[in-house]
């Protein structure tokens, strides 16, 4: 491979963010290319097939299947209304009659002779997809997807739970390694309703509970420990695919699991974005085409386009680049690359791997596997 790229989480003061909004099934687009949209604007719509009710006609009427089949008065494809007669069966030489009313309105989808089951498809369920971020529509795939582009402050976390939400950024004026408790939050001198709180190493149980009571939109902090996450979500997460958790607000950690201070870069950007409206999503999928949780803070377009970098551009490993180590024993440490030996070297685990040398902020010189670092801006 000619060029090695290290994975890196994006933390940008100003970048171009593009979001593809897709429908799960064919539908229609509600916006046009070039149109300006707000985060709440509906950009796509579709109709999900309605529920299917299966009526076990023979069981309901208490007759043999053959008798019921002879008495069915509707046919496949027919529209029925609630209460409309689906079948009528006569017994005892016609002395008694039993009728089967439809329990729901819809379309008859099937009638099965073998068991006299009748399937009624309910009316379609409307589905709409919003823009999620404020910005301009730059591409429309008719009936399928639209792409929104925005110039924005952009912060990616390493892991999150909870889906898309919107709110205003509240940068907590606290040390980066502080554990955020209910008392810390009680001292914040502004309403927290709909806030996206940014700061602290982690939130303890009291802090998380307080944030939920105040109806915040999201919390972004350095880390969370495994028991804390299990308490928050209500169960243990085993696989790194998240975003649908039934949580009161979206939670994003920027560093990882345990107790790790939030990075200085995230902290200073949060201060800069304090009070601005933003979109946030905790969805994480750590597989090919990885999805990381994110905070997007739309900004007024810059006059000078040169200063705007596109999000998601890989950076090469090179001497002088700043990095963070993502594995013990130097987990969380920041440093600068001082050398990139080309030959694999032995590491304490006994493996021979490609490494780099770095000077940490503490002044310590270390050698670590290239796989165990991520570049930071």
């Amino acid at each position, binding site marked *: 491979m000619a060029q090695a790229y290290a994975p890196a989480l994006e933390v940008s003061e100003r970048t171009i963010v593009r979001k593809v909004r897709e429908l799960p099934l064919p539908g229609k687009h509600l916006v046009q290319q070039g149109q300006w949209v707000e985060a709440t604007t509906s950009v796509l719509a579709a109709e999900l097939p309605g529920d299917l009710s299966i009526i076990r006609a023979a069981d309901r009427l208490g007759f043999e299947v053959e008798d019921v089949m002879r008495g069915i008065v509707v046919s496949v494809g027919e529209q029925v209304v609630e209460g409309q007669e689906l079948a009528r069966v006569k017994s005892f030489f016609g002395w008694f009659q039993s009728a089967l009313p439809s329990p729901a309105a819809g379309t008859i989808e099937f009638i099965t002779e073998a068991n006299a089951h009748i*399937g009624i498809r309910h009316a379609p369920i409307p589905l709409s997809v919003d823009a999620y971020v404020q910005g301009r529509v730059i591409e429309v795939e008719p009936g399928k997807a639209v792409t929104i582009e925005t110039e924005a402050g952009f912060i990616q976390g390493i892991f999150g739970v909870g889906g898309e939400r919107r709110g205003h950024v509240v940068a907590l004026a606290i040390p980066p390694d502080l554990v955020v408790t209910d008392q810390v939050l009680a001292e914040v001198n502004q309403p927290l309703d709909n806030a996206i709180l940014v700061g602290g190493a982690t939130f303890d149980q009291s802090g998380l509970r307080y944030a939920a009571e105040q109806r915040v939109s999201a919390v972004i902090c350095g880390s969370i420990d495994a028991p804390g996450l299990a308490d928050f979500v209500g169960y243990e997460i085993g*696989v790194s695919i998240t975003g649908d958790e039934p949580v009161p607000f979206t939670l994003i950690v920027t560093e990882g699991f345990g107790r790790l201070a939030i990075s200085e870069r995230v902290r200073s950007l949060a201060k800069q974005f304090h009070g601005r409206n933003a979109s946030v999503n905790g969805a994480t999928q*750590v597989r*090919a085409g990885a999805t990381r949780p994110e905070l997007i803070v739309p900004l007024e377009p810059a006059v000078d386009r040169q200063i705007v970098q596109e999000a998601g551009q890989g950076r090469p490993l090179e001497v002088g680049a700043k990095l963070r180590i*993502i594995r013990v*024993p130097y987990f969380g440490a920041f440093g600068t690359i001082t050398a990139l030996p080309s030959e694999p070297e032995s590491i304490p*685990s006994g*493996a021979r791997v490609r490494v780099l040398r770095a000077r940490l902020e503490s002044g310590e010189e270390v050698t670590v596997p290239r796989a165990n670092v991520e570049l930071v801006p």
Partner: protein
Amino acid sequence: MSSDTKIDPAKLARVLATDCGSTTTKAVLFELTPEGWRQTFRGEAPTTVERPVADVTIGATNAFLEVQELSGRTLLYADAEQEAEGSPLRPRDGDVGVDLYVSTSSAGGGLQMIVAGVVGDMTTASAERAALGAGAIVMDAISIDDGREQYERVQKIRHLRPDIVLIAGGTEGGTLDHPLELAETILQADPRPRFGETLRLPVIYAANSAAREQARGILEGRFEFVAEENIRPSLEEENLAPARDAIHELFLHHVMSHAPGYKKLLGWSPVPIIPTPAAVGEMVQRAAERWDIQILAVDIGGATTDVFSVFRASDEARTAVFNRTVSANLGMSYSVANVLLEAGEEKIRRWLPFECAVNEIRDRLRNKMIRPTSIPYTQEDLLLEQAVCREALRLAFEHHKRLAVGLAGAQRQRTIGDLFVQAKPESLVDMLGLGLIIGSGGVLSHAPDRRSSAFMLLDAYEPEGVTRLAVDSIFMMPHLGVFATVHPEAAAEIFIRDCLVDLGTVIAPVGKSKPNMVLAEVRLADGEVVLIRSGTLTRRELPAGQRMQVSIRPAARHINVGAGPGASFETELVGGEAGILFDGRGRPLQVPSSAAERLATVRGWYDALGLEVR
């Protein structure tokens, strides 16, 4: 499985093969050299099936380019004006180009299926075996008797995005209601296919044929309805082949052709692209047949663990039965925290030769989950991952044992009487008769010290009797499996010479014992006599490439080392980096529960393997 396309193996001298995996596309070059068929070069690149590069051929070409660069040969079309740019250059002209390109695929998470049957242990199990044998991941298995309410089944399936649904249930002449109820369940849930918004999800109906047309009436409006022979025509007969063939056919022509870039990839290869696990299964079955042994093979990845086995049934013919299972959420990175959840912290900690707090284990493994490409730097971190590996292998094997039961594999019969006599189907897994365990996946194939790979396989599988241990050097079995459909001899040659790396052989007597009791005496060809004592694990060198004749004599009538209780026998041991392992620790393997005793015991095992714990 065999290739539909007529290719003359005698005319092949250079074959390019890829496995388009979930994360990485791995390309290898197979060449006919003066020493015979060899795997000569290898390259890899990230798989490209998702935005922003949603075209599998981009990743494949990047992997080809690495092989091309390393080999210094021209293997690809280079004309930028041509659409064929970056594709394998065929036909070969002297040293330029390749004779054949073949591929397997598990990109995008592999083939994903929902199966349905009437009774969990019977038709649903048959449907599951058909799907797994075809290389699928079973996302959900529905049974009329699965204890769930109808709405619960519908709710669960509604959110799944399978590639194919398989319906079994109802013997010929049996129930009509249940297979139709299953069809109704699928219709009610209305799962949508993973690829192609306009694609109609294929549903294979392999249930009672008398209900087929009515099931068609229920499903045909919304699904691609494919009717197949009944998977369980009678209680005593299982008929998996037609359903498996239909799955492969649909995978190739229906599912893959909608996956990003696959139409182009399919055009590059005259040989059908098959799911990665199906190709591995092909190779395992061929090896078992060739060497006439029972084999257990495992591939432990980042997200999933696949287990393959060939064991002989207990019928008179001792029919070889192939089984494959996949534990979709047991893996070493993306799913590592799930191993922790399923096994529990204590089960993982028991393998560590050092103290580690439970919460430290939980946080470290979750950090691995969210940064899956990071690698252990310290020995402690490495040993923690290897402890997780033991548990993932053990759990996946437990899962495998539940499915590897009578009636699996090719069509065979047993008497109706057997069904009533046995409360549960008889397990096929015969650890005393198991001849070879093959491990693959980064944690096993790329362990810094191969002795630790042997150690992991030993602890996880607890082999009994005499068992050879090996690893797949670079996870080449998928490539060889698909190549074997064209040129089985060449694939077998490469399998032995370049794919399998022998770790050594373990001798593990089983039977009740007292502490420090002599379980068996092993007389080696060089005159050394080793006494295997209960509770001990010892080792002696036997380098890779060497074999040694031994005579094994159980020390008591109830002790079994593979030939039967108390029976002595002679056999040949295969060497490897771990040499010969004499495992008298007993089965099931017990690790002391007190911390101090556990640490001393586990450290002792590391010492025995010659693995220094720093």
